[in-house]
């Protein structure tokens, strides 16, 4: 019989708390693939490519899942290898201007400085009729390190929300990051004969993440209906979202100070999705994007009408064959003219905003600046 059962229970409690604390510290500092598996995997892929091609000019796409699924960077890398250009897709699920800023800082800290940046912008990220902005609702604070969380606080209307998510995930990592921990240990590996949703198998060598299977009309219909329901509240009335606008401006300022040329890309949206926008919202976000382009002197590529309905899984995420077409068009129409020649460096077609010019941050108004 146990002599000191109370002592046993105390040790159990202490060991459990210590274990969770240890796991939390590990997740925060030593296990980035548990904390933010998608970014960590992409960074690993990019490092490997950079090691093999250290002298190539690096073109990186940042952005959301639209960019992540819609931009087949490997295709362009192959085509432009002779021009010594390496293209990589670093767009992340749930991404927006805030996560783009985090991602850029992470890449720079890792010594992976892009020579040209494509930023996939989702127009509805910059419309906030009421409640929280879209990216603030979607992003889970547990993906960020504590220092990043603190740095991103000015961009949230409710910074406490992401703080709470972070604290919960760090206090109970075994519960709230169990899927990532299991993936890390490899216990959920799928059979070769069944579709795999393990990130490692889905994300290709250049960061393209074709999450959805091929055409499946009934599931596509259901997914489209769900997406329209999700985005409809952001597409009826227009109010420029001040904090996402601030984040985008700060992102562009960071690129400017790093002398990284930028191209803003609005990825394709199905006609059904585009029909969500009220005239007011369409005019408002279009005007905003144009003003950003003028202010920062960056090209804004509007690819929204590049693909028909059936080329999307859910109205705004491209299926693989459509991603191939869109990538080729982006490469030919946008990237090729910016390619380095003997006379000019990569991205020389983009003239950065002059030093000291205003940033046009007035809430609810878009500043119209001269186009290049």
């Amino acid at each position, binding site marked *: 019989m146990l002599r000191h059962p109370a*002592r046993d229970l105390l040790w159990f409690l202490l060991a*459990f708390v210590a274990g969770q604390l240890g796991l939390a510290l590990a997740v925060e500092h030593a296990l980035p693939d548990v904390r933010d598996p998608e970014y960590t995997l992409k960074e690993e892929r990019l490092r490997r490519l950079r090691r093999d091609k250290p002298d190539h000019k690096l073109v990186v796409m940042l952005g959301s899942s639209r960019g992540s699924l819609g931009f087949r960077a490997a295709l362009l890398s192959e085509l432009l290898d002779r021009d010594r250009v390496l293209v990589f897709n670093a767009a992340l699920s749930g991404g927006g201007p805030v996560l783009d800023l985090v991602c850029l800082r992470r890449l720079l800290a890792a010594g992976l400085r892009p020579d040209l940046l494509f930023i996939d912008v989702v127009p509805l990220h910059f419309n906030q009729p009421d409640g929280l902005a879209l990216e603030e609702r979607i992003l889970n604070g547990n993906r960020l390190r504590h220092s990043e969380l603190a740095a991103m606080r000015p961009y949230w209307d409710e910074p406490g929300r992401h703080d709470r998510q972070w604290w919960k995930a760090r206090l109970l990592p075994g519960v709230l990051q169990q899927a990532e921990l299991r993936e890390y240990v490899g216990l959920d590996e799928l059979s070769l004969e069944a579709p795999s949703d393990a990130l490692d198998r889905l994300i290709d060598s250049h960061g393209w993440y074709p999450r959805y299977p091929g055409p499946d009309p009934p599931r596509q219909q259901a997914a489209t209906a769900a997406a329209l329901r999700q985005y409809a509240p952001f597409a009826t009335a227009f109010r420029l979202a001040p904090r996402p606008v601030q984040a985008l401006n700060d992102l562009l300022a960071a690129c400017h100070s790093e002398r990284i040329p930028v191209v803003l890309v609005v990825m394709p949206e199905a006609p059904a999705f585009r029909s969500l926008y009220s005239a007011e919202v369409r005019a408002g976000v279009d005007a905003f994007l144009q003003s950003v382009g003028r202010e920062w002197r960056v090209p804004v590529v509007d690819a929204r009408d590049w693909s028909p309905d059936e080329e999307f899984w859910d109205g705004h995420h491209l299926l693989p064959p459509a991603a191939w077409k869109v990538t080729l068009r982006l490469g030919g129409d946008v990237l090729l003219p910016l390619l380095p020649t003997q006379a000019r460096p990569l991205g020389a077609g983009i003239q950065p905003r002059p030093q000291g010019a205003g940033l046009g941050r007035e809430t609810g108004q878009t500043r119209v600046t001269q186009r290049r």
Partner: protein
Amino acid sequence: MLFCTTQFLGFFVVLFALYWLLPGQRPRVWLLVAASFWFYASWSRQLAVLVGAFACLDYLLGLAIAASAGRRRRGLLLLGLGLNLGLLGVFKYADFFLRSLEQALHTAGAEASLPVLRLIVPVGLSFYTFEAINYLVDVYRGRLPAERNLGNFLLFILFFPHLVAGPIVRPRDFLPQTRRPKRWSWLRLHLGLRLFLLGLVKKLAIADRMALFADPVFADPAAYSTAALWLATLAYALQVYGDFSGYSDMAIGAAHMLGYKLAANFNLPYLAVNMADFWRRWHISLSTWLRDHVFIPLGGSRGGRWRTIRNLLLTMTLGGLWHGASWSYVAWGVLHGLLLIGHRLFQEMCDSRQRLKTWLASRAGTILRIAVTFACFCLTLVVFRCATLAVAGVMLGRMLLPSAGLGTPLHVRAFWLTAGAVAVGHALALQPDWRRALERLPAPLRGLGYATALTLTVVLAPGAGKAFIYFQF
């Protein structure tokens, strides 16, 4: 409210604190009754009222039976049995019998359209009606005095740890406990927590993970290869064991923490050497109930071979039907009846073959018997789990004849790791001194072991929590 949810954790922590702060046994009994009612009402308030009402009715019937004699006494017993079986029959079996009758009439060429009741089966119905029947019969036979205290009786029926999925509690074991004052005991808390943790491991880390292997295959067995079908069957065997014995462990552990002792419900059933041994180790509370209230009243194994065979078949068929209103469950019960009969006949044959009997008792023979018993049980699980008998037939056919098809839905490494862990657990449990060895470890090491088990369990639990299998019975 499932045992493995944060909602239950919150409920239990508050209840535990209030319970042990209350002075005296009477307030504690009523607190548990109220908590149990609230626990049941988390599924359905209306059904909680129904269960409470029937429990009160059984209480009054028990008193009436004890106060009566002769034909009146017998009549009251029959009334009680009728009410309880009627409740079970209406909610659980009415639609099944009506559908089957309609089908039979159609087959016979008659036009018939019978009503469909579509009643929601109260959770745990099969368990507490059997407990109530047990009580009324015991009072009738004079084995047990009628419980005069309503609170004690309600606690016997409604006690939340065993209310929804057993173990089926005997009134002779439980009612005396309601009268005994409970004293705080760290040892009992330790034991209860340890059992609860074991149950959690079995449910989350074993059962729910094995469901990931089993569910896709059983949903469409015609698409899968022979190997995948066998693996899914083995996975389901681990799932149903982990789920049910895990729930029982959690129920017994929770009861312990509140000062109540419930009987063990499982005893390493996959180490059974024959089907009779299996039913002494699997769902012990149900098998003993069926033995005492069906098999023995029918005559048991007195009255010759054919009567014994009849009694076994009837008992196990009813046991199958208890699990659910479907021909698959009936067939499963019949199969187990046949396996038990087969075992008896084989035993009789071995009695006259001493060398065979000696070899079967050896280590190699014992391993063979365990393997055969397990394989037989697994094959019956196909009938139990498949949606219909026709689908079970397809699956069994593809298992017994080599068939091509899809591989396992998940990597087999996860399956073999889990099966290995279960095997190691069984091997440890077989060692007679494992408990003493555990107690001799330093307390920090034991604490670390429990904490590691809990952390691993939580990490391994699949994202979407699955309800306990036996809640549907």
